[in-house]
C-alpha cells in the first residue's frame, strides 16, 4: 500500500469487506463482456484486466461503448455475455449497491437537497457506519479535497470545481476497491482541468487506489493513466501505455485516432537487412525499420508522426549504407498553422501526396520559419516510421 494519510488507514475496511489485492496484483478481470441494446452491439466482447493500484483510462470517440462498459462495472447495466471478476468474485449480475465499487458521475450527480457534508456522508450512512465515525471520515474527506468551510453549503452554492471535489469526496468516502470516473473533468475549463488532473493523479498515488477513468480527451488519458484502453465500435482496439499507444499504434485506426499522423499507403518491395523498402503511391519508396511482428505481403501503410519530420531548405547529407539512412521528400509549403509552441506546416510533395510536419518554435524570432510556397526538404529516419497492416 502506498504512503498512508495521517489518521487514515486506507488498506483496512474497504466498503466490500474483502481484503483488497496488493498493488500490482490483478484486481479486476473482464472476460468477453458484451452488451446489446436492441440491434446495437454497444460493447462487443471486451476482455481486460486491471491491476490493483493502477490508473487505467478507457479512451474512445463518443458512442464507442466506453461509458456502457463503465456502467457495467458500476452495475447500472448487466452484461449479456461474459464475466466481471472483482478480486476473484463474479459481480456481473450484482446490483450497484452490492459492489465495493463507487463511481464519480460525469455531471457529478450531487444530491441537490443535501449539504456538502450530507452528500459525502450519504454512502457512509447507508453502510450503517456509527455517527462519530461518519463525522471523522467526512472531515477527512473534506480535508482531502480541500473543501474546508464549505460543509454546510448546498451544491447549487458551489462553483464547478468545488462540485467536482464534492463528487470525488463522496465517491471516495466509502473507500471502494475500485473508483470509476466518467469524464470527471469534462465540465471544467482548461486551466482548472489541468490542475485537477495533477491533483487526481497525486490523490490516486497517495491512496494507492485503483482508478478507471472514461474519457474522450486523449491528452487527459495520456497525462493521467498508467495504461490506456482505446475502444472503437464496442471493441478494445489496443491496450497499452501512453507512450506505446502513441509511438507504436497497432492498427491504422488507433494511429489515426491518437494524435496526428501522416499515412502513406503502399506495398512492401524489398528487404535490406533490418530495413524494409516500401513503395508508396504518394511518397515514393520509403525506407523503414522492420517491425517486430512480421509483416505479411499485401497492402501496408507507413505512418509518421508530424513532429518526427524535420524540414530544411536543402537536402541533408545522406551517407548511404549508414544506420541513419534517411528518407527525404521534396515539396513546397502549402499551409502554415502557427500554434504558439509549435508550427504545423503542410507540405505538398512533388510525388503528389500531402505531408504534415510539426516544428518546435525554439527561437522567438522567426528567422527559421518557412513561408508559403517555399521549396523545402522533409526528412525522417527509418526508426520514425511505423508500419501498419491495412
Amino acid at each position, binding site marked *: 500500500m502506498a504512503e498512508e494519510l495521517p489518521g487514515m488507514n486506507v488498506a483496512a475496511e474497504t466498503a466490500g469487506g474483502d481484503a483488497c489485492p496488493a498493488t500490482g496484483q490483478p484486481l479486476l478481470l473482464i472476460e468477453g463482456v458484451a452488451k446489446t441494446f436492441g440491434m446495437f452491439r454497444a460493447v462487443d466482447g471486451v476482455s481486460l484486466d486491471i491491476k490493483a493500484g493502477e490508473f487505467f483510462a478507457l479512451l474512445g470517440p463518443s458512442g464507442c461503448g466506453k461509458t456502457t462498459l463503465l456502467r457495467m462495472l458500476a452495475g447500472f447495466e448487466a452484461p449479456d455475455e461474459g464475466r466481471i471478476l472483482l478480486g476473484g468474485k463474479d459481480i456481473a449480475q450484482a446490483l450497484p449497491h452490492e459492489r465495493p465499487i463507487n463511481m464519480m458521475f460525469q455531471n457529478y450527480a*450531487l444530491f441537490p437537497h443535501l449539504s456538502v457534508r450530507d452528500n459525502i456522508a450519504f454512502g457512509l450512512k447507508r453502510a450503517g457506519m456509527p455517527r462519530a465515525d461518519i463525522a471523522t471520515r467526512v472531515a477527512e474527506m473534506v480535508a482531502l479535497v480541500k473543501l474546508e468551510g464549505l460543509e454546510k453549503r448546498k451544491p447549487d452554492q458551489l462553483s464547478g470545481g468545488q462540485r467536482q471535489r464534492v463528487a470525488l469526496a463522496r465517491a471516495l468516502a466509502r473507500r471502494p476497491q475500485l473508483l470509476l470516473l466518467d469524464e470527471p473533468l469534462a465540465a471544467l475549463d482548461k486551466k482548472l482541468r489541468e490542475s485537477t488532473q495533477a491533483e487526481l493523479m497525486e490523490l490516486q498515488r497517495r491512496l494507492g487506489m485503483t482508478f478507471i477513468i472514461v474519457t474522450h480527451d486523449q491528452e487527459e488519458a495520456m497525462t493521467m493513466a498508467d495504461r490506456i484502453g482505446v475502444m472503437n465500435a464496442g471493441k478494445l482496439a489496443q491496450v497499452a501505455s501512453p507512450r506505446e499507444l502513441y509511438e507504436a499504434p497497432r492498427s491504422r485506426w488507433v494511429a489515426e485516432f491518437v494524435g496526428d499522423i501522416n499515412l502513406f499507403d503502399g506495398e512492401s518491395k524489398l528487404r535490406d537487412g533490418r530495413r524494409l523498402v516500401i513503395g508508396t503511391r504518394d511518397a515514393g519508396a520509403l525506407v523503414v525499420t522492420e517491425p517486430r511482428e512480421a509483416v505479411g505481403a499485401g497492402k501496408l501503410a507507413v505512418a509518421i508522426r508530424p513532429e518526427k519530420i524535420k524540414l530544411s531548405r536543402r537536402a541533408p547529407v545522406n551517407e548511404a549504407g549508414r544506420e541513419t539512412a534517411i528518407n527525404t521528400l521534396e515539396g513546397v509549403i502549402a499551409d502554415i498553422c502557427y500554434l504558439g509552441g509549435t508550427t504545423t506546416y503542410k507540405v505538398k510533395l512533388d510525388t503528389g501526396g500531402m505531408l504534415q510536419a510539426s516544428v518546435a518554435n525554439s527561437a522567438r524570432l522567426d528567422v527559421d520559419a518557412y513561408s508559403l510556397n517555399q521549396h523545402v526538404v522533409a526528412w525522417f529516419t527509418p526508426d520514425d516510421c511505423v508500419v501498419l497492416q491495412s
Partner: protein
Amino acid sequence: MRKVSRLSRFNIASLALGLAFLYLPILILVLYSFNASRLVTVWGGWSLRWYHELFNDRAMIEAAWMSLRVAVASATIATLLGTLAAVALSRGERFRGRTLFSGMLYAPLVMPEVITGLSLLLLFVALNVERGFWTVTIAHTTLTMCFVTVVVQSRLGSLDRSLEEAAMDLGCNPVGAFVVVTLPLIAPAIVAGWMLAFTLSLDDLVIASFTTGPGSATLPIRIYSEVRLGVKPEINAICTLVIALIAVVIVIASLASKLSSSQGESAAPL
C-alpha cells in the same frame, strides 16, 4: 441577496390590469358578503349578518362539509395513484403498450366533464352502487388523477436519472434510492398535485351532480341550486369562506415546499 430590479411604469400598469381582471370579481363578491342589505346589488353598509345566517343554514354547512371530505379523500387517492403512474411512466422499463397507457391516462384531461360524469353514472347504476360520498370521491379521483400525473411526471422528467444511480452506487437499493433521493426532490410537485386535485374537486359541479345521490349534495351543487332561486347574500358569505380556505391551503403548501427544498435530509447535525 438578489437585486430586485425596479419595475417600469408599463410593467406596473400591465400587472395592475392583469390582477384586476383576475381578482376584481372576487373582490366584489367578498365585499358584498359583508353587505347589510338583503339586495345583492345594493350596498347597505357593513355587516356580518349573512355569515351568521350561513352558520344557521344546516343544509349549506352539510354541503360544505361533504365537499371538504370529498376533496380531501379524492385528492389524497388521486395523488397516490397519480404519483405511482408518473413513476411508472417515467422510470419504469419500456413496457409494451406504454404509449397507449400514457395516452389513456391523459384522456380525462381533455374529456368533456359531461361525458366523464355520465359514463360514471352509468357504471354506478349498472353496478347498482348506492350513490353518495364514495361515488363522488371515486369520480373526482378519476378526474384529478391525470392532473397529478402530469405535474409529477414533468418534475420527474426534469430530474437527473443519475441522481438515483448515484444513490444506488452509494449503497441504496432501488426502492431506497427512490425514497431517500427522488421522493424529497419531487415532494413539491406531489404537494402541488394534491393542491390541484383538491381545488378541482372542491370546484367541480358537473361530475358531482351526475354521481352524487340524494342527501349528499356538494357545495357547488348546493350553491347552484340556491342561485337558481335567486342570489342570496349568504352565497357570497360561503364563497368568501371557500376563498379564504383555499388561500390558506396555498400559503401552507408553498411554505412547505419552500421548507422541503431548503432543508436537507437531516436538519440535525450528523
